[in-house]
């Protein structure tokens, strides 16, 4: 099937404005007759729920944490892009659009990216009005810094806690709507099924994580804002509760999964220290504004980094990419770091690390300024590693961080299941094969504040409110299905814990479907994952009952979904016989090791249709056309 992204035709500069005018509206008096279910309360979900509530819709918002403020958007430290051009350094909506298309290695839709760049400016204004304390200069104007993949300073920031501050802004807007009675919040609930009636999304089945009650909430539309899936690697920068579950269960109910193999490996994470680690910690990319990456020139040089003289250091990013230097995009910086380590020149335990050195910056601007810019990150680094990065370089290694793939959506952020909308990291739309720095926060808030309010109206205007009631047979069936699925998990009573399976899966994924993939490793993964899945369903041990607070059961459900999803990820990576952005197939590289894209055969979005566990999924394609930014080799040299 050829998928239609429903992008507006004609000049891109006016595409969103024209489309907005063409979308249907819902009269204010009728808005309150509609109920919208929003799953997830991060930047996309929090912003969407608050905005839809503000417009007058009845909103029910769900999150698995005890508070909407704890979504993992809170951990995004670096900043948020906008094309304000305040520093007068040549930025424009067009340039942000251009950088994002190029940064994503030409695997994103032009119209979506244009819109993102266009509304980015509204986001800053909105957040400032909410009282988000962005960094300012002494005169009171907003301050900017630069991030990977850009040669202008367009990143707005709030110390090293930008994600936190933006999320708290959205959360405060959400709290205002809760008070106003337009939004009902359901914390500590997890979506375990999508209810589809006559082909349209009309409800979700959730588990109350305190009581274990399984129940369905019905609505006129469902908005998934459930974040990314890189916890499939076990060790990642995601929060412990991040999963593919909501997306995967919607996928099983008919929603197509697009580009699952596009996962971002972030270059600046604290290296792994031991076998029994639960997660990896990201250090903001903004550190590369002042930190210089280097590895010793000599193999196996295990002198203290401060004892290695200048001429025995290889500042490999500055050497290889003179025009972008340490601010090369993430996929490029990640592969370059791996290259140093694979060459035997890595530093730290196991040789899995490179240096990120601040000594020049400290000499230039003083320790005080560095402390002001990144102080909390240095503190965090010291807590984890017991090393003082003001006195010696930080050690960094790439780690799974962000998913560019997600449920397939059209230009309206609507999936192929009518009434099911997907926003933020949970959809596939704007990042292509690689996400540039400071653009995830931008996308979450753009979708939530400035896209969904318009596009969902177009769907609701054509829909009769309250058509499906809670006693609909599909709701009852959904509750029964979820209960029996959970009971199956509880009754296996095997020998291995959920975490053991998750670790094993993570190892397969990292080694075979990680930073570098090949036909051989992918085929190996596709063989090993179903075997592990089979063992899981025979030998996992989940203690406790379903009708109580049961964290083992929660984890078991999430890992069960990862065990199905991981296979799809590997299949997607295998079918895509090219390298692009975060998808690097070792068979497809230039003589100098850069990614070799194949536009003739793979310039499309690959969207998979679920056909059953252990059955071949069906691939649908949405061709990508580039009319404004011409397909070109992506160079940062």
């Amino acid at each position: 099937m050829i998928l239609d992204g429903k992008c507006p035709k004609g000049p891109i500069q006016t595409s969103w404005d024209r489309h907005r005018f063409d979308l249907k509206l819902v009269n204010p008096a009728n808005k309150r007759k509609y109920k919208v279910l929003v799953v997830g309360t991060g930047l996309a979900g929090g912003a969407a729920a608050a905005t839809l509530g503000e417009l007058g819709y009845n909103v029910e918002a769900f999150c698995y944490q005890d508070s909407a403020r704890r979504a993992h958007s809170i951990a995004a430290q670096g900043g948020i892009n906008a094309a304000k051009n305040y520093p007068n350094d040549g930025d424009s909506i067009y340039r942000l659009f251009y950088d994002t298309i190029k940064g994503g290695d030409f695997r994103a839709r032009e119209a979506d990216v244009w819109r993102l760049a266009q509304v980015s400016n509204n986001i800053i204004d909105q957040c400032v009005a909410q009282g988000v304390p962005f960094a300012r200069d002494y005169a009171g104007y907003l301050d900017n810094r630069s991030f990977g993949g850009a040669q202008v300073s367009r990143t707005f920031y709030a110390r090293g806690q930008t994600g936190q501050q933006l999320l708290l802004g959205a959360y405060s807007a959400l709290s205002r709507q809760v008070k106003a009675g337009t939004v009902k919040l359901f914390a500590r609930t997890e979506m375990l099924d999508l209810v589809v009636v006559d082909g349209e999304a009309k409800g979700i089945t959730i588990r109350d994580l305190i009581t274990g009650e399984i129940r369905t909430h019905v609505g006129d539309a469902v908005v998934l804002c459930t974040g990314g899936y890189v916890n499939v690697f076990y060790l990642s920068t995601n929060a412990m509760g991040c999963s593919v579950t909501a997306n995967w269960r919607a996928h099983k109910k008919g929603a197509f999964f697009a580009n699952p193999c596009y996962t971002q490996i972030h270059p600046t994470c604290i290296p792994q220290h031991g076998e029994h680690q639960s997660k990896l910690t990201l250090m903001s990319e903004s550190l590369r504004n002042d930190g210089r990456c280097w590895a010793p020139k000599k193999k196996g040089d295990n002198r203290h980094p401060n004892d290695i003289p200048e001429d025995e250091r290889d500042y490999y990013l500055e050497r290889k990419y003179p025009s972008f230097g340490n601010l090369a995009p993430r996929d490029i910086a990640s592969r370059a770091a791996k290259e140093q380590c694979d060459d035997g020149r890595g530093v730290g335990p196991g040789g899995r690390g490179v240096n990120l050195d601040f000594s020049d910056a400290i000499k230039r601007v003083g320790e005080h300024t560095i402390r002001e810019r990144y102080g909390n990150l240095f503190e965090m680094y010291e807590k984890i590693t017991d090393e003082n990065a003001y006195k010696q370089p930080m050690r960094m290694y790439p780690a799974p961080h962000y998913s560019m793939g997600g449920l397939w959506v059209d230009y309206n952020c609507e999936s192929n299941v009518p009434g099911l909308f997907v926003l933020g990291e949970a959809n596939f739309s704007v990042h292509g094969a690689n996400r540039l720095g400071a653009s995830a926060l931008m996308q979450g808030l753009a979708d939530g504040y400035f896209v969904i309010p318009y596009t969902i109206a177009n769907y609701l205007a054509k829909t009769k409110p309250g058509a499906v009631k809670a006693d609909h047979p599909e709701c009852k069936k959904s509750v029964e299905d979820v209960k029996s699925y959970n009971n199956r998990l509880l009754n296996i009573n095997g020998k291995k814990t959920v975490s053991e399976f998750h670790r094993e899966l993570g190892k397969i994924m990292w080694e075979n479907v990680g930073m570098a993939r090949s036909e051989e490793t992918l085929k190996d993964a596709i063989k090993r994952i179903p075997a592990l899945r089979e063992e899981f369903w025979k030998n996992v041990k989940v203690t406790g009952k379903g009708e109580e607070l049961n964290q083992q059961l929660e984890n078991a459900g999430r890992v069960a979904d990862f065990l199905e999803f991981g296979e799809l990820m590997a299949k997607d990576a295998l079918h895509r016989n090219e390298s692009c952005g975060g998808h690097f197939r070792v068979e497809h590289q230039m003589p100098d090791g850069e990614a070799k894209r194949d536009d003739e055969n793979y310039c499309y979005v690959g969207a998979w249709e679920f056909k059953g566990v252990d059955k071949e999924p069906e691939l649908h394609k949405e061709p990508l056309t580039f009319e404004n930014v011409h397909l070109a080799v992506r160079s940062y040299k």
Partner: protein
Amino acid sequence: MNLTLHVWRQSGPNQPGKLEQYDAKNVSPDQSFLEMLDEVNEQLIKEGKDPIVFDHDCREGICGMCSQVINGVPHGGQERTTVCQLHMRNFSDGDTIYIEPWRALAFPIIRDLIVDRSGLEKIMQAGGYTSCHTGGVADGNAILVPKVDADYAMDAAECIGCGACVAACPNGSAMLYTSAKVAQLAALPQGKAEAAQRVCAMTDAMQEAGFGNCSNHYECQAACPKGINVKFIARLNREYQKALFK
């Protein structure tokens, strides 16, 4: 290293609870406190026992989900550190460690180490926001905010809402938490217009949710993983008095 743990176990809000003893063996000093507990749990699951239930999520010290009183101190007593960022190198071989949930009247225990912190939500919902609509707001640079004010607001805004301040306070007060939001928004031109209504509404909500009052023990500041300063409580009081005279 090997440790002896005494962990608060309680199966439900109205059930009796007690400290149970567990051994944590071969703990690496590089592990985080929660990773140490993960391993204890793995062992319990293998023995067919119910693992210890505790709240945690980002494990980067920023989401505010984790909440444990370790040896009598919320988040374990290392300065400006959440439990998830507390590392085992702060303990020694042979140590005995007591692990309990947040203690406060306004935080009923749900199970084991998990408490109900929804009282903090009610305070936010009462007024922790500016009444701004998603459309047609002024350009971000249209209203200047001097750096000193922005920095002051940011110092307050760093609060992660974990509730350690409440757990540390002998009165179970949420004044530090509330004051952080009040001070942040009162310091900015965008939030100033509603400052009087906000401080009254949030203070009322704090009392309704069952939190106590401040009597200047400063335990909150000592326990706060983000180092939120008690000067914001003074600001809260000042804003409150100003509102009363309006």
